[in-house]
């Protein structure tokens, strides 16, 4: 079957199997930022936005995306650069494999709760696992990113 979705602002039509996930579709469409780290909805690596909400692309049926808007890190390069600088400034990305999923969820947080406290940041991002960093530097980096957004015009 075919689905037509708005991917990073562009309309895309693609053939999918009935039981394909959005993750599978996105990888097939060359969205390499989207990673898979588990099969049990626990890791957060495959986080993308669907209609502006952060979702686990591994669990969204590809077919359900027909007519919807999906955004990956490829479509948020400007924001990625800014948040990326905050993370890299701390060395908080380490292996970087979890970074795209984390960043997509940070963008969702920035929209929903731009003045999040440290505890709120942790709670919001709890579904983004990272095995390298020990998390504390990521929290600092996200805080700095949110603060930098405040001073933006």
């Amino acid at each position: 079957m075919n689905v037509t979705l708005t991917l990073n602002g562009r309309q895309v039509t693609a053939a999918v199997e009935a039981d394909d996930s959005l993750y599978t579709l996105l990888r097939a469409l060359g969205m390499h930022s989207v990673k898979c780290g588990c099969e049990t909805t626990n890791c957060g690596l495959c986080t993308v936005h669907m209609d502006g909400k952060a979702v686990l692309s591994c669990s969204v049926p590809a077919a359900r995306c027909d007519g919807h808007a999906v955004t990956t890190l490829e479509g948020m390069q400007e924001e990625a650069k800014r948040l990326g600088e905050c993370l890299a400034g701390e060395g908080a990305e380490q292996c970087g494999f979890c970074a795209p999923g984390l960043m997509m969820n940070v963008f969702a947080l920035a929209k929903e709760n731009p003045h999040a406290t440290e505890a709120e940041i942790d709670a919001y991002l709890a579904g983004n696992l990272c095995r390298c960093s020990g998390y504390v530097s990521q929290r600092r980096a996200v805080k700095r990113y949110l603060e930098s957004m405040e001073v933006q015009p």
Partner: protein
Amino acid sequence: MARYKDYVAAQSLEEAYALNQKKSAVIVAGNMWLRMCGLNRQMAIDLCRLGLDGIEETQDAFVIGSMTALRALETDAALNAAFGGAFAAALAPIVGTQFRNTATVGGSVYARFGFSDVSALLLALDAQVVCFKRGAVPLSLYQKEPWDRDIITHIRIPKGQRAAVCSVRTSATDIAALVCAAARSQAGMRMVLGARPARAMIVADALAPESGADVFEAIAARTPFGSNLRASEAYRRKVAPVLMARCAQACREVTA
């Protein structure tokens, strides 16, 4: 990994219901657990286009569409104001925001997961499961039934109650080792234990709000518990009265 050959985004409840009468069909709600269960079916029926997501407040109840995401229940101001923040408390520990953005209340209720935090709370609140064909069924009854081929359209939660939820988890975001939910209404206090690890059950109804430790000890003594990866039967039995006491206390506090 669940496998199916056909996917249908049903255009009406009638269509969804008709298609779902075949054993080879399965309803897709949040697709969180379904995806993992290794199911092999002919057809997946998606309810996503039926407008079943939304929380509506009526005179005497909250009516929640079955496709409403758990995150919506967690953040809904009116719902949480009405029940002392119990939904936020029950749902926030589940995996992560992205998970709760996709997992649905209908999926949780239909699957009758033993570990379900939300089912425990809904059970305490004496919720009704509104099915397309059968109409409204008390969750306390629905909870005990085997999987059927009807479709949940809504969950109805009567107002005028105070609720609290408590759980033990070995680590944050994990499935609970034990969940306790309590709701206090005119009739008294109702106490539910979930993640026993079997399905949540009402362990006490119309309990005096000021019940003490001995009452909870007695309830725990007669409640069936089991062992799984997360805790043993003995641990659950020992912790249950503690959680019941904490829920009861919380219900008293929010009332006052």
